[in-house]
């Protein structure tokens, strides 16, 4: 009897696929997204939907232009991951065109012009985010107020109306619907020479950090730990990011608690957790060696802390990730593990 299948080893059915990995990431994002919706309203969902539609349209168009198998690559869900990450990073009531521009830039320039899946040196979602942040600063800094502080929160359709038309329903004012984020408040407050206890007396504050922001970060932490447990991501990058952010914060805080927020505040504010577990861990643009991943994470955490503490932007995950993306190849080449049977200095022949 003859056997037609002459393929080389290993022969076992592979346990994972790119699509499988991306879907796990999407599942792990669900708790964080729900927390954001609970806190900031339905705008988050609309952002994600607009971003996803744009991402798939751009991906399909680019794949067709580049003569790549459209169906196979659309099925890998990587476009959806980029869309969700960008969608939740944008202000919940951002105008629709902002989301479209950012997502299109991420997909076309951030991903496909570099060669598509696997070839982009920068995290596409963060590239899109930074382009928007620099190009449309006033739209990007209007974050929604926590639902608990809004007397009459917008319903799902009202949010959509605001996003599509920019016109507020009667009886609502922009001032009532938006508020500074805790990181914004700290930045501007310290800029006006206030002390932290003075700044933290406002209505947006809770016990650890901003009201509700703690829960958002805890939800993303939960999703991230799920990914670590499922071995979709390794622990070194998230651990590195959180350490790189928390340690310098703790040191400065212990020196002067009135002008430097502590480690815990840093960890539960802004994009700390989603950054550590979902953005920094984007495999394509991260370092890949075991030690390199830890250094890469530490770098992101530290640069984020630098930007939050000393630079002009209230949060710095996006910039930190892009900067470390640039360093990833270098980190990889300096952190090659010692190979079995070779001396520490490298090949011993």
């Amino acid at each position, binding site marked *: 009897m003859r056997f037609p299948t002459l393929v080389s*080893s290993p022969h076992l059915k592979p346990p994972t696929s790119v699509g499988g990995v991306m879907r796990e990431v999407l599942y792990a994002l669900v708790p964080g997204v729900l927390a954001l919706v609970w806190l900031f309203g339905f705008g988050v969902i609309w952002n994600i939907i607009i971003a996803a539609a744009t991402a798939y349209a751009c991906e399909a168009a680019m794949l067709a232009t580049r003569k790549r198998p459209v169906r196979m690559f659309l099925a890998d869900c990587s476009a959806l991951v980029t869309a969700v990450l960008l969608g939740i990073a944008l202000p919940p009531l951002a105008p629709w065109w902002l989301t479209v521009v950012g997502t299109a830039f991420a997909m076309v320039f951030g991903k496909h012009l570099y060669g598509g899946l696997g070839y982009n040196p920068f995290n596409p979602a963060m590239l899109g985010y930074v382009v928007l942040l620099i190009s449309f600063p006033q739209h990007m800094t209007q974050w929604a107020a926590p639902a608990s502080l809004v007397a009459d929160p917008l319903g799902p359709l009202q949010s959509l109306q605001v996003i599509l038309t920019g016109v507020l329903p009667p009886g609502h004012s922009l001032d009532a619907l938006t508020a500074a984020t805790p990181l914004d408040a700290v930045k501007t407050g310290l800029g006006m020479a206030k002390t932290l206890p003075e700044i933290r007396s406002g209505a947006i504050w809770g016990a650890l950090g901003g009201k509700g922001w703690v829960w958002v970060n805890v939800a993303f932490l939960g999703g991230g730990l799920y990914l670590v447990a499922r071995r979709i991501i390794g622990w070194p990058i998230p651990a590195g990011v959180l350490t790189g952010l928390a340690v310098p914060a703790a040191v400065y805080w212990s020196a002067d608690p009135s002008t430097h927020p502590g480690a815990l505040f840093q960890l539960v504010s802004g994009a700390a957790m989603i950054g550590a577990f979902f953005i920094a861990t984007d495999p394509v643009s*991260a370092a890949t060696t075991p030690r390199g991943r830890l250094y890469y994470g530490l770098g992101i955490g530290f640069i984020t802390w630098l930007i939050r503490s000393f630079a002009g932007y209230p949060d710095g995950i996006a910039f930190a990730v892009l900067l470390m993306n640039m360093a990833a190849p270098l980190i990889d080449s300096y952190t090659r593990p010692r190979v079995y049977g070779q001396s520490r200095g490298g090949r011993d022949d």
Partner: protein
Amino acid sequence: MRRLWEFPGGLHLDDHKAESTRRPVERLPLPATLTVPLQQHIGEAAEILVAVGDRVLGGQTLARATGYVSAAVHAGTSGTVTAVEERPVPHPSGLTAMCVVIDTDGRDQWVAPLPPLDWQASSPMELRQRVRECGLVGLGGAAFPSSVKLNPTGERALEHLIVNGAECEPWIACDDMLMRERAAEIVEGIRIVAHALRPREVLIGVEDNKPEAIDALRSAVEAAGAREIEVVPVPTRYPAGGEKQLVYTLTGKEVPSDGIPLQIGVVCHNVGTLAALRRAVVEGRPLTDRYVAVTGPGIREPRVVEALVGTPFRDLVDFCGGYAGDVDRLLMGGPMMGFAVADDGVALVKATNCILAATPALFPAPDTAMPCIRCGACTDACPASLLPQQLYWYARAQDFERVQDHSLFDCIECGACAYVCPSHIPLVQYFRYAKTEIWAQERDRQKADIARDRHEFRQLRLEREAREKREKRERKKAALRSRRAPEGEGLSAPGDDKKAAIDAALAKARAKKAVKDPARETEATRERTGNDGDTD
């Protein structure tokens, strides 16, 4: 409790051993034909001793070892040689190789066995000679001639004799059954090797998913009173049975890159090899059969059978109830490192530990590979701490210098990286391709070196010949001149007589000198030209 070391990476796989260990081992009835390849081992092919038409007996040497690293091949039963020709053999290349084909006669007549050796009174050299005569090779899969590994280590004492009973690859279960059923023979084999090599410590490494085998070995060690032997269960994690991994797990020592275990005071043998070695030494019987697992989702009654070297795979499958379901792939070896054969007419060789009939449900045809997303799952799985992803980029770019700089040749091709790759990139295939290309380049380079050496030698020779010719001409010229000078004496003008006489005398003296000492001729020439003010 013995300290164990944990090698990096590795995989937890469903072991699928139970499929073939549920039934007891049975001996396969004599097949109608045996197809015995002359090269079943690493090293040089054996040299044929029989011809078509010869009647051969069981145990008769069909071909003898031809070099230091080589192994003899024997007939497994009596019959007639019907062909000595190229036949398909189970080899990853799918190529044919020289085989002796025997039509068996069913009488199973044997040559007289070699005289049994009292191993405790035998020298290492006698034991080694016996092992070589009996055609023993490593039965774990690599088929390295065993006699080479029986060399005493010289001045340095051997630290560890490591016996490999790990059998880490899924589905393969021949060693498991051998350890359960023939533990006493394995232990005696170990004692023979230990007698020859005098190691400080003897360790049998068995993965802890084989408790029956561990118990059997422990009782056998007890029964033999061999206190120097320790059975060590090792954690079940593929590829714990890789030689380098097992050595590290048991000793914490690493086999040097490009080196062999002996360099760190370790010798490693497979359990099956040791049972066969005992039979060669104690019973004087050559290696003509082995345990093989015939298993997989495509076999009706999977089991471990004892079969003659040369038995067609088809006979083994038929004995195990035939194929079940839509078998589209037949493997020799396990699912991680085994290779597919095109036809079940190929024959069992000494290295065949498993015949695996695969169906698409558990072994689907490979998908189209997606681009690498640099997730690093391969790095985490690699037991050699390589960076498979980097190796892949460089192999794909045919950057063979960088791929070697990333230690390509430390890759043991265990397949862990390719198995975990979410993009389904056939990484091992890329690595094999790069290795083959580098070997080919190396061969070309060596050829070029030889050609260059030859060319340079030829140039030297041509120069030497030209020089010799020139010297000869010079000598002839000089001789001619010295002869001509006296002749011209009468013709020259009277005023030149004196000068001519002096010139002639000088030339004569030079010619004489040149004849006496040709080596100094050039010097003399230089002197002369210098005197003449000629720049030559």
